[in-house]
């Protein structure tokens, strides 16, 4: 009987880390914003079947153990104990693996709240279990409550200003038709595909993260 399903571990795939900055690049580089937010590591579909198999195995182990415990109480202790212990260790190990899997996925999903904002892209949602989507919504709510409670009128949006600001205005390029966009000083600009604009960084940061705009670095 195989006790751990290794495929569980592969549920979360890491993207290889970006190449390290060379010494000249330190401090010189403009903060480059993620393109379309797709630099996150990929979340594979929830391994429903796999997890269910583990649960079945645990049930089998547990039943076997109960029978053996009864036998042991009838007097055959010496022969039964090693088996019971071994199965119990296996049960605990399985529990730990499943919990680690569930928890790791949650962390990825929580990270997505910071990357994508409060609405999940459809392709990511497709890979989540229903309960995970629910968890994402609840986590979003929880975070929003906290951000609102930071003392100030309107709270402080912690998902903004992820990188230290280097300049007030940045040059951006439109990647898709987005329609009209009202700037802080009341002007209206048309965000048309392939058009270039010079905008306040704080205003268009969320559009960059959504993948509407691209920060052009020269």
């Amino acid at each position, binding site marked *: 009987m195989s006790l751990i399903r290794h495929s569980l571990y592969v549920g979360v795939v890491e993207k290889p880390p970006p190449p390290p900055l060379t010494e000249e690049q330190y401090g010189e580089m403009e903060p480059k914003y993620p393109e379309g937010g797709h630099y996150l590591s990929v979340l594979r579909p929830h391994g429903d079947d796999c997890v269910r198999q583990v649960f079945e195995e645990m049930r089998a182990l547990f039943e076997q153990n109960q029978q053996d415990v009864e036998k042991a109480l009838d007097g055959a202790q010496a022969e039964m104990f090693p088996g019971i212990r071994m199965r119990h260790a296996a049960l605990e190990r399985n529990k730990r693996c499943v919990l680690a899997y569930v928890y790791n996925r949650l962390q990825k999903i929580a990270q997505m709240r910071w990357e994508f904002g409060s609405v999940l892209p459809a392709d990511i949602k497709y890979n989540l279990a229903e309960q995970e989507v629910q968890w994402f919504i609840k986590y979003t709510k929880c975070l929003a409550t906290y951000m609102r409670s930071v003392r*100030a009128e309107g709270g402080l949006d912690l998902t903004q200003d992820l990188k230290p*600001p280097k300049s007030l205005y940045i040059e951006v390029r439109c990647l898709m038709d987005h329609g009209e966009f009202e700037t802080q000083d009341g002007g209206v600009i048309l965000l048309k595909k392939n058009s270039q604009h010079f905008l306040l960084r704080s205003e268009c940061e969320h559009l960059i993260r959504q993948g509407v705009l691209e920060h052009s670095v020269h």
Partner: protein
Amino acid sequence: MATVDDIPFDENGSEEEGEAMTAAEVLGKLEEAWLNEKFAPELLENKSDIVECMMSQIQEMEENIQRAKKGDFKVSLHRMEIDRIRYILSSYLRIRLKKIEKFTSHLLQTEATLEDPCLSAEELHFAKQYQSLLESHMTNMALKHMPPNLQKLDPKLTSK
């Protein structure tokens, strides 16, 4: 009409705060707290008074900018300054939040025994909510499908 020169700027330190601290001093304290928090592995004591003070400072600066003349060169300098302060503030609170998420159950356990609490009231609220979210998800996804003697989360194993 107010001119840009009325904007309280950190260097002139004209803004007196509760305990007679200038804006520049508050900013210095905030930076110190931010760096400490950033490089410490565990959650440090909360500095919500500094955060609050800086938030109101930012608001005041923003209002002053609204009143200032359009196209004035100094306005963009002040805007930049606000952006920088806001970055420090959010980064500071973000780091704390990440730590709270990581050590939720440990923090909630020790919080009751500490004399001066690490968490601010808002952070405590967040931690409790997060903890219950996590536990109910774990129960629904995994624990309730397990044999009855394994359905509990062991606090010794889960709280780091």
